[in-house]
């Protein structure tokens, strides 16, 4: 892998009604792009959930964003206070991208 092309890949599991708050934080950290991925259901320490359009309270998305190290670090700092209260799960890894200047 070419380290110049490496960027941080962040995945945040977030409740649907809160997704746009996470997007705002990403934007505040200077991250310009993200993609929300659809989930079906899941289980954690707080029991199981599945998509529920009726109450709109239990659907979750995976917020996926790729960014350079600086922005990723800033984003994680901004997320910090929400982690416990909002029950977020955050995964962090690295990927190689094409046209790295975009991220």
């Amino acid at each position: 892998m070419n380290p110049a092309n490496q960027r941080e890949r962040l995945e945040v599991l977030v409740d649907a009604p809160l997704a746009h708050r996470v997007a705002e934080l990403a934007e505040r950290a200077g991250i310009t792009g993200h993609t929300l991925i659809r989930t079906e259901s899941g289980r954690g320490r707080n029991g199981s959930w599945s998509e529920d359009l009726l109450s709109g309270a239990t659907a979750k998305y995976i917020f996926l964003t790729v960014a350079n190290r600086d922005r990723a670090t800033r984003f994680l700092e901004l997320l910090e206070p929400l982690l416990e209260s909002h029950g977020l799960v955050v995964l962090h890894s690295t990927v190689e991208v094409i046209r790295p200047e975009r991220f």
Partner: protein
Amino acid sequence: MDQLSATLLSAPVLFFLLGGLAALARSDLAIPETLAKGMSLYLMAAIGLKGGVEVAKAGIGTDLIAAMAAGLLLSACLPFLVAPILRSFGKLDRVNSGAVAAHYGSVSVVTFVTANQIYGGSGFIVAGFMVAVLAMMETPAILSGLIIAKRQSGNVFDKDLLREVLFNGSVVLLLGSFCIGMIIGEQGFEPISPLFKAGFTGVLCLFLLDMGLIAVRRITQTRSLTMRLALLGVLFPIANGALGVLAGTLVGLDAPSVAVLGVLAASASYIAVPAAMRLSLPQADTGLYLAMSLGVTFPFNIVVGIPLYRWLAETAGGVL
């Protein structure tokens, strides 16, 4: 009780029971979420239109004002009555008791619709303007619940929440359809009545089938519904329903409207409030409030509550 068996043997309630039994037997019967959402939107548009058309016919009277005032008061105050009991007897913390209390102050559209259907089927006709009361009662309880939950910390409201409260989708759709119904009147309603009137009871059946499935699955999936809380899920609607009947009788509504105000007070939200709580009180236990509202209170109201509040309304009308 003749009322009770008439309720239990109506198609909508039978479909609700079928859904409940299927979920108990752990059948894989399931209605896609998207369709449930669509049916819920349809029911709101239809009930709004129907109410508006009726008000266009009957005119707006002082009854409407009185009923709205009573409804607003109930929605705003019930959470404050309910919350202390959730904390002491129910053993919930402040945040969860605020979140659950907001649900009991607010209302359930489908309980309202089912009550209208069952009452109307036996000639106990509810006034059209009660749809507007339904819409008004959806959101004040959210503010009360948040005040309870956040009494100490300063910022109770943010702009997201305010929008949620004022322009909540179900409130907009109910009030919007109500206004459209008032504008188009009976004549303008005619071309759309095959969809919104003739199809109504059938869609309600399918929707209640799904609610039966959801109600039972909510109870079996949650980990935090204690016996005490389940008991409160039955006692709250009885007490709140009685308060609703009392309020309606005091402001001088007719018996069917009094009964429906009882239904509204007794019912617990499962649309507007859960989404607002997820937004404003993300620490609260979603599984818990949905289990209480959808799993316990909703079935109780559909099966037992609807005839009960009618009986209370008729009794109160005779006594007061």
